[in-house]
């Protein structure tokens, strides 16, 4: 899949920039963390397929296997940028 970089937008107030949808950012669109796709981009497993296995360390240092841990309950799995910034 060819992914296009979204560079729309420009300077905003003071040292800030604004993207094409009106969100402020510390860097010009298409730079640093603000490298977002314009148009199609991969969104992973399809609706109707089994969620791939996820095994990772949680906030208390415990190893979590999501499918085992949810113990037959429905779940929401969020991929987000960072808890730090």
């Amino acid at each position: 899949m060819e992914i296009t970089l979204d560079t729309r937008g420009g300077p905003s107030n003071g040292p800030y920039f604004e993207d094409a949808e009106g969100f402020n950012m510390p860097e010009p669109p298409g730079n640093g963390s603000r490298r977002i796709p314009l148009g199609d981009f991969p969104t992973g497993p399809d609706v109707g397929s089994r969620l791939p296995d996820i095994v990772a360390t949680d906030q208390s240092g415990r190893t979590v296997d999501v499918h085992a841990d949810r113990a037959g309950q429905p779940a929401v799995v969020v991929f987000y940028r960072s808890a730090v910034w």
Partner: protein
Amino acid sequence: MDAYRAAGVRLYALSYDEPDALADYAKAHDTTFTMLSDPDSEVIESFGILNTLIPPDDHPWYGLPFPGSYVVDADGIVVAKFFEHNFAVRSGPEQMLAAALGQEFEAEDVRGGQPVDRVSAEVMVDGDRLPMGVTRHIVATFRVPEGQHLYGEPVPEGLVASTIELDDSDGILSYEMLAPPTSPLTLAGSGETLQTYEGDVVLRLPIAQNARQMQKDDDGRYVTISGRLRWQACDDNECFLPESMPFSFRVEAGFPVLGDMGPGVGRVPAMNGAQHFQRLIDRRA
């Protein structure tokens, strides 16, 4: 989070942060959902959602996903997913919970089973606040009398599809409307097939607030969302005139939870953010 627990739905949030950064965040915010650490972006890569627009030597940004959410049912099957191209926008928890429970298009029975003779419509905002960049849904519920139907897209010239229309606003973004599947109805005369809804019909329009509205709103604490519902009802013999119902909601703006690089004014609670950020830069440099 209480709503998730009450509904028996688990919540996992995965990022490329180190476990000790998650521990500090969880402590600072009293987090009760499961935060997962994927410092080498292995899970992110295995899902095929690594942001490949970021070069591998650009720290600390390399390793980020194209952010989004998956909703899985009790069998672990993906039943819905929410991805927006702009990483400033993410789905609200109400919508993901509704999808997890299979209730996205379920209408609450407010008329107590009383039959109606013409279509009635209601509209609400799902979620009490509209923080910048977090989507909420405008939810329209149409009560369609037995023997009548409404239309979904596409409609031929002369008929009006059921829809939620927003007034133009610099500060409110809207996304593709979510609608339940339609039933095909083939007309005897022309052989043309129309897409119809019967019974109670729920439509959902995701909206988000950008930074412009935050700056422009008079006191900065409320945003106004206005627009109209449109629909046209028909029975087997005739079509009624198209109808329109305006709406206007003044919703508390709210603020997203931001990462804390603190300490500093308005930056509570502290979670050693600057130190963890430096680690993100140094760990692969």
